[in-house]
């Protein structure tokens, strides 16, 4: 077992954050009761929010990366982290799917949108581009979704990785856990709930507080978005409202998988080219197909029911 007493034998782990609210890293730091155990289980080499002492020139066993990628500088850092890490884990919805900042992916030209908000700004620090999740740039081995992540799912992933095992997180929809918690179905009460198309593992937190699911854990493994849209339309929600909700947290995953259903097929931009600085680049998105435990990129509904 890796949990040996010597520091040297512990897996080396780094925590990183890009564009996002840092809520996932904060969620980990908020685990006051478990924090010592976390730092005891693994050798944390980099966690800027926790300690200014970082070792960012070392090889890592596992890198946990929060946030989406929005500038060339971030892309270089991500490529560097990828190169140094045996396993790269996307932490939180922004890293997994792009987050709300990716909600408009494929909605017209990004440059025009940028200009509309910022005017003719000169980029002095870093060159920005349209926000994308990590796997549009580098290979991602595991996805821990959530806005923010659930601490128990994080512990589960951390302990599995620390013991050299694969990580299988919940892929079935929120509805199952919602039933376990014996909530009244909000869809049946004609609310715009995304539970059936959203990955579970959150313990149906929002519906348990009588709030409809907003899809912050991203699309479930086999989300039947077409049926969900029909169902919501039957409950008199407008197509615009439904698509907007689906895209808010669905990000790139929602756009890539269900563009035709969202009515944006013609406008979806191609994946970004790989960063030039990666010496041995990995084709973006390929990781998804290897194992079902890694949040599989389901093919379009038409092919597979």
């Amino acid at each position: 077992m890796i949990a040996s007493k010597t520091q040297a034998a512990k897996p080396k782990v780094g925590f990183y954050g890009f564009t996002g609210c840092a809520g996932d890293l904060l969620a980990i730091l908020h685990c006051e009761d478990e924090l010592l155990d976390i730092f005891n289980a693994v050798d944390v080499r980099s966690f800027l929010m926790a300690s200014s002492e970082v070792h960012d020139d070392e090889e890592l066993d596992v890198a946990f990366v929060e946030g989406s990628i929005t500038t060339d500088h971030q892309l270089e850092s991500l490529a560097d982290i990828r190169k140094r890490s045996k396993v790269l884990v996307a932490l939180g919805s922004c890293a997994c799917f792009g987050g709300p900042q990716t909600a408009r992916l494929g909605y017209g030209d990004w440059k025009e949108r940028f200009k509309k908000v910022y005017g003719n700004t000169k980029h002095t620090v870093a060159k920005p581009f349209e926000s994308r999740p990590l796997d549009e740039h580098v290979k991602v081995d595991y996805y821990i979704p959530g806005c923010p992540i659930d601490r128990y799912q994080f512990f589960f992933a951390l302990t599995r990785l620390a013991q050299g095992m694969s990580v299988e997180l919940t892929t079935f929809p929120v509805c199952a856990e919602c039933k376990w918690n014996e909530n009244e179905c909000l869809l049946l009460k004609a609310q715009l709930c995304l539970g059936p198309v959203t990955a579970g593992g959150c313990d149906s937190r929002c519906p348990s507080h009588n709030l409809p699911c907003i899809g912050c854990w991203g699309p479930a493994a086999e989300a039947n978005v077409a049926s969900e849209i029909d169902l919501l339309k039957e409950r008199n929600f407008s197509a615009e409202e439904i698509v907007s909700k689906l895209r808010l947290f669905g990000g790139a995953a929602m756009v890539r998988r269900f563009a035709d259903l969202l009515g944006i097929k013609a406008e979806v931009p191609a994946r970004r080219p790989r960063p030039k600085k990666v010496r041995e680049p990995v084709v973006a998105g390929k990781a998804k197909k290897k194992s079902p435990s890694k949040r599989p990129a389901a093919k379009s509904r038409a092919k597979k029911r």
Partner: protein
Amino acid sequence: MKALKLKKEDLYTYLESLKSYGELWGPVSRGEHYSYAKLANVRDVALQALRTIIPPKKFFVPPRFNMFRYSEDQYTETFEDVKPRVLFGIHPCDIHGLMILDELFLDRFPDPYYKKRREATAILGLSCIPDDKCMARSTNTHAVEGGFDLAFNELGEEYLVWVGSSLGDDLVRLNIDLFSEEIETSDVQKYLEWRRKRDSRYKLNFDLTGMPDIMELSWDSPLWDELADRCLSCGSCSMVCPTCNCYNIRDISDLSLESGVRQRRWDSCMNKEYALVAGVHNFREARAERLKLYYTHKLKAFITEYGRPSCVGCGRCIDTCPVSINVAEVIRGLKGQEVKL
């Protein structure tokens, strides 16, 4: 089995006296629905409740529970919530559901987690008048002849109370003064009349004879694809079904990496992962295949093996599925009638 009478006005007093045996649980309101909850106040019990959101299987196979704690050299079974309990207000269909689970979990390969919880629990049945989602008459699970410790049948100002086990007899003796043994001819007449009234209220009536044959013939029916287009694969139907009993197991390590728990949680054959095996092979990858499996199990395979469907007609799938896929619609579809999705 003997029959007794209890005055309606004495019910709460009797329920209160049951607490000396163990925790008292019964249906309580949950919004517009019902859920089994611990009855701190016996007057909270919702006597009008028909179906709870999830069935009483939750008492014997909780949605999530820890089987045992493990460390590097040993394991300890926890049995966290095993304690004497009285479940009051279980309707006949749900009692049949428990009898089906008993066959699966107690007969050939007893499941210790189920067994311990089952043995610690008294089942107190309660009669009901069906609504438009009940179809227990079609599945012949609308009445009980066993599977309970006590069964209460509402009859005007009284309950007829059947004693179904020696534990039931003990429970009556907790407050025996409340019960009367004097059954009169008029009571028999009233009871038969009540049964006729109950039977006449079923709006969903299906002839399920020969269902395995029909299912076999329908193997390639386009019905499955039509349902699959609509199905959300959310698994809610399995969660609310009194006889669905599949589960998944996972080990959750403590952060010390030296100990942890083995957790069991409900699973559903509607989940894509369900039939996933090594090498990323999935022998029921298509949603239509999974729907077919679910209903084949309810209406064909179980009948072939156990002589009765594994649907007890409780109506929970009718009440739950957001896209109206349920056992009644599937039976209609299989019998060549129009399906309303």
